[in-house]
C-alpha cells in the first residue's frame, strides 16, 4: 500500500504521468488551495481549478525536474490556464489602478492553527515586502501581467507606453524581484 503523503512532489508528478489517479488526488490535496485561490482571485471561476488539475493530469509527462521545482511548474500551469482564459474572453477582471493594489495588504493571520499556515504567512510577508521594494511602475507591470493576464504589447496599449519601455520595465522588475527573493532566501538559511 503506497503512502502518497510520504512521496515528494516531483515523484508524485511522475506517478501522475503514469496515470496514477491516487497521485493526482494527493497533489490536489497539497495544491488545491493555492490553485483555487489564484483562479478565484483572478477570474472568480470555481470550475477553473478543476480544469487546471485536469491540465496537470494531461501535461504531467512534460514536467522536467531539471527545469525547475514542482511547485513552480504547477503554479505555472495554473497561471497559464487562467491567463489563456482571460485573454480569450478579452476582459480585465481585477483592478487596474495601482492604488487598488493596496487591498493586497497582508491579512491578519488571526489564530494560527497549523505550522503550514505559519510558514505560508511568512512566505506571503516576504513576497509582499519584496514587491514593495519595487518602484511603482515596475510593480504595476508585474501585477498587470500576473494577476490580469496582460501581455507586454497589451500593457503598452493600456498604459500608453512604448512597447520597448514596457519590456525593459518587465525585465528590470523581474530581475529585481528575483534578486531580493534570492537574497532573502540566503539570509533565511
Amino acid at each position, binding site marked *: 500500500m503506497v503512502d502518497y503523503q510520504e512521496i515528494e512532489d516531483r515523484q508524485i508528478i511522475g506517478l501522475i504521468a503514469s496515470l496514477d489517479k491516487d497521485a493526482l488526488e494527493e497533489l490536489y490535496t497539497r495544491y488545491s488551495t493555492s490553485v483555487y485561490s489564484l483562479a478565484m482571485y483572478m477570474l472568480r471561476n470555481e470550475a477553473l481549478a478543476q480544469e487546471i488539475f485536469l491540465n496537470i*493530469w*494531461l501535461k504531467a509527462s512534460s514536467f522536467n525536474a531539471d527545469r525547475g521545482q514542482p511547485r513552480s511548474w504547477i503554479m505555472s500551469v495554473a497561471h497559464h490556464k487562467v491567463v489563456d482564459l482571460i485573454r480569450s474572453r478579452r476582459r480585465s477582471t481585477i483592478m487596474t489602478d495601482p492604488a487598488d493594489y493596496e487591498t493586497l495588504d497582508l491579512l491578519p493571520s488571526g489564530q494560527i492553527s497549523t505550522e503550514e499556515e505559519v510558514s505560508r504567512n511568512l512566505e506571503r510577508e516576504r*513576497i509582499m515586502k519584496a514587491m514593495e521594494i519595487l518602484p511603482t511602475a515596475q510593480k504595476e507591470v508585474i501585477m498587470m501581467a500576473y494577476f490580469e*493576464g496582460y501581455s507586454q*504589447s497589451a500593457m503598452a496599449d493600456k498604459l500608453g507606453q512604448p512597447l520597448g519601455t514596457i519590456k525593459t520595465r518587465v525585465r528590470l522588475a523581474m530581475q529585481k524581484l*528575483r534578486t531580493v527573493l534570492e537574497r532573502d532566501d540566503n539570509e533565511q538559511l
Partner: protein
Amino acid sequence: MTTNNSENEHWAGAHPLELLEAYALDALEPEESFQVEAHLDWCGPCSREAARLQESVARLELMAQRTQPPTELQARLMHSLDTGSEDSQEFSFSPPVAASNGSNSLFWKPAVRFLMPVAAMIMVGLFSAAMVLNVRLSDRTDGLEQQNSTLAAQVGLSITENQLEKQLMEDKLNQLQLTSYWLANPANHPLALKTSQSAAGSKGVLLSAKDGSGAIIMVTNMKTHTPGSTYQVYLMRQGNRVWVAEVKVDDQGWGSKAYWPEESLYRFDKIELVSQTVQGAAASSADMVMEANIPGALPSQMLALPAWQ
C-alpha cells in the same frame, strides 16, 4: 505571426534572454511563447534561467487572498477523470397522501357519512393508480439514467481521448520544431550511429552542440527492430554507463530526443541506444540497438554522415 527563414536562423543560434522574464510571467504573445519554449527544450542554460525566474513568479500567488475550495470540487475532479459525467439528480415521486380535515360536527351529517366511504374508495383507487404510475415512471427513469450515464461516459471518454490526442499532437509538433532547429544550426556536429544486426534497417544520428553541452538524437525505421516504443540512451566512460535520455518512437518508427548532460558529451567514450522500457535496467548485448564511439572534442574527427538509403 508567421516566421521566415531568417527568423528561424535567429532562433537556432541566439538565446532569447530578453524574453525570459516576460515568459515566466506569461506576458508574451502566443507565438513568442511557443518559440521560447522550443528554445528551452534544447538550451540548458536558458532553461535553468527560466526555471529560476518561474520560481520567483510562482511566489506571487501568495499575494492572492487565500480561499479554500469547496469540498465537492475534489470529488468532481476525480469523477470527471473516471466518467466525465455530471452528478445526476435523483427523481423521486411520492404518492399523494390523503388529507382529512373533518370536524366532529360534520361527521354526523348524513351526506358526509355517505360520501366519506366513497371518498375513501376513490382515494384508494387513486393511490393504487399512483403506485402503478410510480413504478412505471421509476423504471423509465432508471432506463434514462442508465442511458445518460452511458452517453456521458462516452462523451467524457471522447473528450478525454481528444484531449490526450491533442496533447500528443502538440508534443509531436514541439518535437518536430525542436528537431528542425537543431538541423538548421550549422554549428552542430553530426555523428552517425552504427546499428546492430538485429536492428538492420534502422538509422540513427546524433547532433551535438560544438562544446558538447547538449545534443539531439534522432532515429528512424525503428519499427523494424522490436515492437517496443521506448529506447534508453546511455553515455559510456571506461565501462561505466550514465543514463541520459529516453527516446519514444511513433508508429512510423521515428523518434528524437534532445538532452544536455551534466558534463560535456566529449568527455565520454561512447553512446548507446538500448531497447529497454525503463532506465537503469541491466542491459544485455541483445538489448543494444545502436552505438557510436564519441571522438574527442575535435569536430574534424566526426564521422561523415553516410548517404541515407
